[in-house]
């Protein structure tokens, strides 16, 4: 209960410091592996943004934008994994990322029977002076999708 009230407090007394600094920005990448020992470097970005978006789609998204908002939530989860000191919060964020990648795989009907091991990593993008740099800051443990399905 106390924990929940702690979560409520920033809503009742907000800081309103929107975009005060442009922090390193996380990208979530994942891979599917055949077994626990496979070392394949086959990371793919989770839900990459489209090359273009029509004005009509932007207007539709005023009313219906679930996957983009979910992606923004996962950005928060990625930041919590890196910044948050609480083990419980890190575990929660990691589980959220796993479960939402898994849902996406199911939605896209990706066959995972031969590659049941899911892993994700967090790549933070930042500007160092004028150069854009990418740093891999976290690699998750393996998550066996086959165990959950059975």
């Amino acid at each position: 209960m106390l924990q929940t009230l702690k979560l409520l407090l920033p809503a009742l007394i907000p800081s309103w410091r929107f975009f005060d600094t442009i922090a390193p920005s996380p990208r979530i990448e994942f891979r599917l592996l055949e077994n626990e020992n496979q070392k394949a470097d086959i990371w793919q970005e989770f839900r990459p943004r489209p090359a273009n978006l029509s004005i009509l789609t932007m207007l539709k998204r005023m009313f219906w934008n679930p996957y983009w908002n979910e992606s923004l939530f996962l950005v928060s989860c990625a930041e919590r994994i890196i910044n948050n000191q609480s083990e419980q919060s890190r575990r929660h964020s990691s589980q959220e990322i796993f479960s939402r990648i898994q849902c996406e795989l199911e939605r896209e009907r990706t066959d995972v029977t031969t590659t049941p091991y899911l892993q994700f990593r967090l790549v933070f993008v930042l500007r160092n002076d004028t150069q854009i740099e990418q740093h891999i800051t976290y690699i998750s443990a393996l998550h066996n999708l086959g165990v959950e399905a059975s």
Partner: protein
Amino acid sequence: MNMDVAIRVTEILLALAFLQQSVEHLVAAKYERTLFALRIVLSLLLLFGIATQWVSLLLVVLGLFVLRRFQGPYNGGSDRMSLLILCCLCGVLFAPTDQWREYIFGYLALQLVLSYFISGWVKITNSEWRNGRALQDVFRFSAYPVSEALRGWARYPRLLCFMSWMVMMFEILFPVSLLTQSSLIAALVIAAIFHFGNACLFGLNRFFWVWLAAYPSILWLQDRIFGM
């Protein structure tokens, strides 16, 4: 705008914002779907003005479950503003006296003003915002631009510097608009266009709907202080 009208309009706008947010969660996993299906039912009751006092209280309780479910807000600032409006609305509906109603609704209006003023202040005190670099970074590598094509805007530093100053000046000067009703209405229209732009460029659609729900409180407060 008198207080009763302002409260009723707040109820309607908040209910619509909650409906928009909640429907988006119906594509999620089962527990999440259940939470937000419940919120849809309560939002419809709020929208049609049925037992609004108890409905607002139930929405606050449900909001706590949602906070627990996501270990914080699902969509940062927009969820925080939703909860702030909801808690203030609930407080107003349960307030023992008219004076308490005014304090609580006035607090919501004050927070709305601060949401613009503080956002502007933290930007204008940052040299990267003043020279346009920060907005360039937003387009260049942040998670927000909704398409790769929008990242190309980072190649127009002068335009982005101009846009940065427009945003900062608007946010900083927002409190001045309280002086007259017409200046406040003009400022709220500009603010709504600003949120609409953010929704189109950065996919922040929830901010647009929920910030609108706080506008009746500031229209009431302006009338209460300067309209006498």
